[in-house]
């Protein structure tokens, strides 16, 4: 039970942080926190059901998180090289422009 609460806590803190932060890297970190919440949830359920498939799910989630982190490193890094900023507000030129 607690483990589920923790997972929900992680997940929702991830959401809050994702919304709250303006730094692209930090936003990504918080989204990883959300994935961590999912990992915790799946492992937690696996423990509750006393079997292993949930752990495999958690493992896969970890793997994909790592992959995403690698992509993030490159994408954000290259953006920083051209833009010299990671402020998401400055990286938002593509919204609706007034006509």
């Amino acid at each position, binding site marked *: 039970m607690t483990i589920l609460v923790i997972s929900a806590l992680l997940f929702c*803190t991830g959401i809050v942080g994702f919304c709250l932060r*303006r730094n692209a890297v930090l936003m990504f*970190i918080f989204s990883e926190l959300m994935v961590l919440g999912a990992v915790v949830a799946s492992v937690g359920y696996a423990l509750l059901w006393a079997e292993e498939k949930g752990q495999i799910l958690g493992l896969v989630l*970890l793997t994909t998180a790592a*992959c995403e982190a690698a992509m993030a*490193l490159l994408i954000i*890094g290259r953006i920083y090289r051209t833009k010299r900023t990671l*402020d998401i507000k400055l990286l938002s030129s593509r919204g609706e422009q007034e006509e």
Partner: protein
Amino acid sequence: MSVAEFVALLPVLAGLGGMVWLSSPVYVAICFGGILLVIAGWLAINGAEFIGIGLVIIYAGAVVVTFLFLIMLANQTGQAEYERAPNRPVLAWAAGILLFLMMLFSTVWREGVPGLVNRSQMQAQTGIEKITSDRRHVDQQNRAPFSRTARLSVELFSRFFWLIQGSALLLTIVMMNCVVIARLQKDRRGDTNDYSSD
């Protein structure tokens, strides 16, 4: 909730608070690593040793280091205005808290999660005889009462064979993609044009 659990929860809460409120990205990354470690330990204690260790290795080892690398690369000091000023705090907190309440509510509502009641009760409730998905799996389980980790590996290399292949493919592709992106030349068509329009 046992006392131990509560004690384990406290550092997590603290870490989360740090992540949200600390302005320096480095500290945030370190807090994230701390949370990971606590969670990993906690999971390992609770019987998911493999995943606990995986968490430490993959996340704390690879991901957090990657973050720190990126942060160092981008020269983040936490001094810039955009790193300190929260973005739409009211909306963000409202969304987060409400979603948390939603998940909490659905988790603890009445009987709550079926896993919290015991198996037989669940079976009675759903009317399904064999709750486990796979007959062969059940047979194996009965035949070979391995440890949990061992069972995990059996699962991984039997039923989830193609999953392993898929994950491997994923990792390979990401690796190659990263190499390509890293080697992309800067002065490509479109780059120069865009300075003016931005």
